Structure formats: C-alpha cells, structure tokens
C-alpha cells in the first residue's frame, strides 16, 4: 500500500509540475496575475507530493518491505538502521527521487521565501525550475520506477554494497545533490532573465544566496566523498581524478566562478551576459555529472546503473536543457544591456582573471574526462586518462590563480593600485618566504617544488588577515576606530576571507601529503614489527570478530614512537555474507603531524600477512580546509545584505544609528 501511495504521489507531482511549468508562463505572457500566481502554490504542492513519495520509499526501506523490488535489491533485514535509510539513495532509482526532491525543495523555497521577488521573475523562475522537474519525474516514472512490486515477495533482500555501508557515505549523496541541484536555481534565474529580456544588479543579489548555498553543499559533499575514499578504499589516497569525482568537481569550479562573477554584477552592474552564461554552464555541468554517473557510461565505482535506455533518456534531457538554454541565450542575450568596461587592474579585473582561470581549468578537466569516452565512441580504442594528465594540466592553471588570490580583495573597484596592494601583502609574503626556508631547512628530501607549495598555502592564509587589516585600517587609525570598523564590516567580507584562508589550509594539506608521504609494504608474521616515519608498529596477531552483518578478521598493531606508547591500530578485513563481498577497513591513527594508515593484506602460506603502511603528513588539513571554506560560505550567507529584502531594513537601521550619532 505504502509503495502505491508513493508511486501515486510521484505521478500527481508530475501533473502539478506540468501545470507549474505552463500556467505561470502563459500568465506572464498575457500579463494575467491570476495565472501567474499559480506558480507559488504549485511549487509548494509539488514539493509536498515528492516528499510523500520519498517518505513512502524510506518507509519501505526501514520496514524492510521486500515486495518492493528496489528494497529487495538494495537492502537486507540484518542491515543497521542508518544504512537502511541511506540505502534509499544508495541506488539508481532512489537517488533520482532524492534528486527531484531537492529540486522541488529549492523551488518551494523560492515560492515561500521569495515574496520580495518581482512577481513576474518569480513566476518565470518557478516555471523553468518545474520544467526540469517534469523531465526528471518522467525519467523516474518511465525508466526508473522505485516502487515496482515483486510477486511473490522474496524472503530477504540482496543487501547494500558493503563499501557503501559507511556513515560518511550515508550523507555524501544528499549534500552532493543539494549542490548539483542547487545550481538549478541559478539556471532557472538565468533562463527567466533571458525570457524576460531584462536583468539588473538586483538579479545578481537574488541569485547569489542560492548559488552560495548550493556551492557550500557541493563543497562539503565533495570533501565527504574524498574523505570516505581515503579511509574506506584502503589506498590511502584522497583524490583519484576518477571521472565520477570530476563530474562533481566541474560544477564546483564553474559554481565558484559564478559566485565571483555574480559579485561583479551585483556591485558594478557589469559582466551581465557572462554571468548568465556561467549560470547556464554550471547547471549544464551538473546535468552532465548526473548523466555520467547515472547512465553507466563510465567504468567506475559509482556507475551502478548499466542500462542504456536510461542513459539515452538522460542524454535527451541534457540535450534539451543545455541546447535550449544556449539557443535562448544566443537569441536573447543581445537584448541584455552590457555593463561598462573597467581597468584591467581593479577588483573587477581580478575577478575576471579568477573567472578566466577557473573556467579554463574546468575546461581542461572536462577534456580529460570526456576524451576517453569520445575516443572509444569514435575509434573503439580504450584509454584511461588518470592523475598524470590532470596534474600536468589542472595544476599549472590553478596555481597562478592561487598566487593572485590575495591581491583581488585588496584592489579597489573600478581602478586598483597593484603596487599598494603588493605593499600591504608584504607581511604575508615575508611569512610565506620564512616558512618556505624553514621547510627547506628541515626537510632535505622530497620534491623541490614542495616547499614552494607550502609557502603558497601560508601566502593564502596570511592574505585573509591582510585583507581584514586593510579594511579596518589597522595601525592607520586608532585601535578603537579599527574595532568600530571591524564591527561594521559586512559578514560577507569575513566569510570571503575565511573561505580564501580555507583554500590555503587545503593547499598545505595537499602539498605535504603528496610530497612527503611514506609507504611500506612488508610481509609480517605475528611478533614482528616495522618502522615508518618514526613510528614502530608491532604486529600482535589476527583475531576473528563478528559484526552486525559481517564477520571480520582483525589485526592488532601496537604503535610506539621513541619507546612511548602511541596507540593500537586494528585494521581488518570484513566479509559480508549476504552481499558475498569483502571490504578492507584501514587502521588509522590521526594526529596533526599526519595520519598513520595501516592496511591488512592477504595471509600467506607460512602464516605471515602482507601489510601496507602509509604515513600521510598533515593530510587532515585537506578536509579541514574544505570545512573552513564551508563555514566561510555560511558566514557570507548569513550576511543581511544577501538575504533578499534585507537591504532596506539594514539601511534603515544604519540610518537610525547615524541619527543617534
């Protein structure tokens, strides 16, 4: 019954979405406010209906209703509750329902909180948003129905792929999708502006919070995925340039560019056409990501669905939306008024450089991701484009951006003074240089570029306080005056500086792990020990243990450092009986110095085990950097100016404050 309710709700949602797609557009065309007003309740109803479908599916999972084919394929009664819930989106059908749920959530948010949007813009945005929902609801109902019943109902389920039974991965897809799908908002706003033929600075102010929220979710989603891959897959790596990773990374790069270009549009009323184009590109990349992951065209961990019908359907959706949006852009963009030009050395100029480098780097990733597919389709030759390609192309393009990053916020709008900015950055440069020399002195081994990388990280981190010091005129005016200025600084300024510092923290983590990682692969019998990076690991032996839905062999390593006990590590090999599959659980000791990472290999005939041990220096900074970027985004989002409608109140408050003075 519950499955039928869900199925029915999905079909109803499709009906509502079709109404929401057509009626408001007709309304805005004939200037009929009654028809236009349909958009708001329709968006809310659509969200509620898809919510019902989602809850129905979740109920089927939690109650282990194996008469539902999707539950039977991906769940098992012995699975822990958390993974019964995350199993909902751990498969193709369920994850598509989550996709449209988030799409509808964003639409409903615009309907509910967008009271201060011009009616016409809001109606158009909701209509465009709903057209995406129509396409994906059709896709679900026609090709990927999650509510299919089985008759007779099997006794128990097939289970969820064990590598996916993990807390970080339970929440990785919802964040990732919130990011992907969140960019649909920027897309809908862009297309609505094109339909309208009108765009102004206010448009950018409305778009920015949605883009920022999506960007934050995508940042944390990608970081979670990378963290999961690091500790779960047992290779000790954090990023593999796998096509699936690239599929989420490309929208992130384009979205980051969009955040910055929207800033120019909001403040200077320039770069309008480019910002519209970027909004379309960003969501197109999200759609392409969905296509790559969901169609099964890739040889990859994530591509579970191997069904050409689905691939062709998503390809068609992609073609219609990307092609349609670009056609509309080509037709309508000339109508939009261009903003003024500006001096190359200025805040706008630096943001253009940011956009240029980010989009070109994104294009390089795109080429590396699609080239193998294209080559295979055309010549039948199979190749893999791996990390060496991306290290050679992406890194040289992104490093100049990182070097230039601290300059941007120090340049004035319209016309900046590069020399003055350089002088202000002197402290940061000296700090970076000092750390570079220190690293070089302490660490003789390792690649010569590594100390430069660490210096770059310090440069980025120090750029953030430099910007704040500049804004509050630290040391130029009295301390109390600086304090007053600091309190009046918009939160977005702190948010931006914090996010930039986060990039610096991440760079330090990336560089030190890549450059100074140590690795040992040894054959160890119980009682033997090995040493790595100053740690001694004594192998105490292997014992069996029973988990909730698996059995495992757990090794015990006693770790000491200079004779002092540090910790005990227990890497294991798990066997999942239901899924007939095995996973390796690494034993990891985290510290600020770095992670000690132990993987248990196979047992050999003489009783010894092959053991792989890594030491990854300062690797946790990578994810801490991402977290800092996330919080920087959050701080920026909490800025009153970004909350639509808030500017008036903020201004009147400031006026009141001025009146009191």
């Amino acid at each position, binding site marked *: 019954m519950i499955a039928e309710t869900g199925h029915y709700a999905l079909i109803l949602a499709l009906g509502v979405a079709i109404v929401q797609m057509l009626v408001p557009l007709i309304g805005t065309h004939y200037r009929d406010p009654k028809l236009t007003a349909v958009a708001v309740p329709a968006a809310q109803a659509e969200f509620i209906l898809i919510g019902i479908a989602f809850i129905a599916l979740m109920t089927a999972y939690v109650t282990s209703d194996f008469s539902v*084919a999707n539950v039977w394929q991906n769940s098992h009664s012995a699975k822990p509750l958390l993974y019964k819930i995350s199993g909902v989106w751990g498969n193709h059908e369920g994850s598509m329902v989550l996709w449209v749920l988030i799409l509808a959530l964003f639409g409903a948010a615009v309907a509910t909180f967008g009271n201060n949007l011009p009616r016409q813009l809001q109606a158009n945005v909701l209509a465009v948003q709903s057209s995406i929902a129509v396409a994906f609801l059709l896709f679900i109902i026609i090709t990927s*129905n999650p509510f*299919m*019943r*089985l*008759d*007779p109902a*099997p006794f128990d389920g*097939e289970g969820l*792929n064990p*590598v996916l039974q993990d807390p970080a991965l339970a929440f990785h897809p919802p964040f990732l999708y919130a990011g992907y799908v969140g960019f649909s908002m920027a897309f809908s706003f862009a297309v609505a502006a094109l339909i309208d033929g009108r765009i102004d600075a206010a448009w950018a102010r409305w778009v920015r919070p949605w883009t920022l929220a999506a960007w934050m979710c995508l940042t944390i989603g990608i970081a979670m995925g990378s963290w999961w891959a690091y500790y779960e897959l*047992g290779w000790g790596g954090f990023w593999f340039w796998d096509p699936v990773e690239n599929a989420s990374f490309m929208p992130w790069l384009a979205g980051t560019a969009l955040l910055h270009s929207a800033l120019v549009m909001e403040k200077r009323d320039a770069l309008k056409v480019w910002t519209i184009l970027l909004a379309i590109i960003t969501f197109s990349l999200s759609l392409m990501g969905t296509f790559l992951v969901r169609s099964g065209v890739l*040889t990859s*961990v994530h591509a579970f669905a*191997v069904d050409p019908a689905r691939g062709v359907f998503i390809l068609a959706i992609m073609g219609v939306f990307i092609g349609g949006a670009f056609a509309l852009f080509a037709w309508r963009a000339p109508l939009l008024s261009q903003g003024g*030009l*500006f*001096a*190359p050395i200025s805040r706008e100029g630096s943001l*253009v*450089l940011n956009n*240029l*480098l980010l989009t*070109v*780097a994104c*294009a*390089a990733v795109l*080429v*590396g991701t699609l*080239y193998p597919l294209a080559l295979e389709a055309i010549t039948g*030759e*199979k*190749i*893999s*484009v*791996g990390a*060496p*390609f991306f290290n*050679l*192309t992406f890194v*040289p*393009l992104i490093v100049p951006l990182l070097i230039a990053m601290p300059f941007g916020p120090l340049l004035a709008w319209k016309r900046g003074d590069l020399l003055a900015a350089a002088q202000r950055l002197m402290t940061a440069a000296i700090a970076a240089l000092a750390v570079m020399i220190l690293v070089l002195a302490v660490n003789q081994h390792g690649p010569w570029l590594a100390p430069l990388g660490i210096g770059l990280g310090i440069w980025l981190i120090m750029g953030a306080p430099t910007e704040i010091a500049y804004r509050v005129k630290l040391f130029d005016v009295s301390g109390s005056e600086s304090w007053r200025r600091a309190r009046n600084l918009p939160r977005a300024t702190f948010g931006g500086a914090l996010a930039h510092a986060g990039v610096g923290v991440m760079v330090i983590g990336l560089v030190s792990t890549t450059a100074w990682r140590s690795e040992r*692969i*040894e*054959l160890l019998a119980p009682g033997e020990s090995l040493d790595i990076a100053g740690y001694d690991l004594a192998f105490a032996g292997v014992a069996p243990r029973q988990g909730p839905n698996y059995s495992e062999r757990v090794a015990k390593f006693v770790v000491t450092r200079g004779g002092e006990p540090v910790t005990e590590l227990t890497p294991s*090999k798990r066997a999942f009986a239901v899924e*007939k*599959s*095995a*996973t*390796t659980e690494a034993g990891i000791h985290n510290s600020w110095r770095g992670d000690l990472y132990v*993987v248990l*290999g*196979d047992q*050999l*005939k003489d009783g010894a085990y*092959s*053991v*792989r041990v890594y030491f990854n220096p300062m690797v946790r900074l990578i994810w801490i950097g991402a977290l800092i970027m996330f919080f920087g985004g959050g701080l920026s989002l909490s800025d009153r100016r970004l909350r639509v409608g808030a500017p008036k109140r903020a201004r009147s408050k400031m006026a009141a404050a001025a009146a009191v003075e």
Partner: protein
Amino acid sequence: MTRKQRRGVLIGTCLVVLGVAVGLVLYAMRDSIVFFYAPSDVAEMQMSPGQRFRLGGLVETSSVVRGEGTTVRFVITDGAKTLPVTYTGVLPDLFREGQGVIAEGTLEPDGVFHADNVLAKHDENYMPPEVAAKLKTQGVWRGEAGAAAPSATN
C-alpha cells in the same frame, strides 16, 4: 586607458590563458594517457618495453603464485592468449582467480607484465566493462552472472 585598449587587454589575456591551456592539454595527451589492451592485443602488437598500458582480462585459475616477500605472480587470460603478470604489493579485496581484473604497468623484455597497480572492481559478479567487451569479442563471455530476479510486476 581607452576603451579599446581595455578590451584589448581583456581579449589578450583570455587568448594567452587559453593558448597555454590548449598547449598543456595537448602535451599531457601525448605523455600521460594509458591505453587498455587484452593479452591478444598485446600478442599482435609490438610493445616497446617501458610503455605503460592497462592489461585486462580474467585471472587464470590456479595461476596465482606468492613469491618471495609481497611479490605475487599470476596469469591474465582473455581465453585466446595469456600473459604472465608480476605485482608487488597488497592485492585488492576482490582479486580472485577466475575473476575480472585490470593491471596497470609495463611489459618488460622478459615477456612478463610488471604491474604497479591492480584494480579489481567492487562486486563479485561485476566485470569491468572494458574486460567484458574484450571477452565478448573473444567469444569467452559467460553471460551476466548473478541471481535471477523473481518475476517483476507493477
């Protein structure tokens, strides 16, 4: 600066960055791309020693030999031809005899493929699509393994 000059700087910068990017991509394409072959392809082609490629196929039954230390030797087959492989390190969880596998490395003059990376994909019944495609063309495809689903109704 005049309007024209400003536009010139903008377009010039774009062209330089794009030019550098295209150069990097073309350079990287030449040097850092890895091809995928089955043992039969390797037998037909003249591989120069030291050329990196990916070798895919099935691990031949009872061919896995643990050597000294953590070195493992096994044979990859595509039904028609075989190629011996040596690998030092910890094999992935799902590495099994008779299962699909991809090894990345170089073919050395001794006729042995020296792998520095072995990938076995996640599901026991899962076969890397590259391997499946090659096996299909070689005619040793055994069909989709896996439990037959109960009949589905709506």
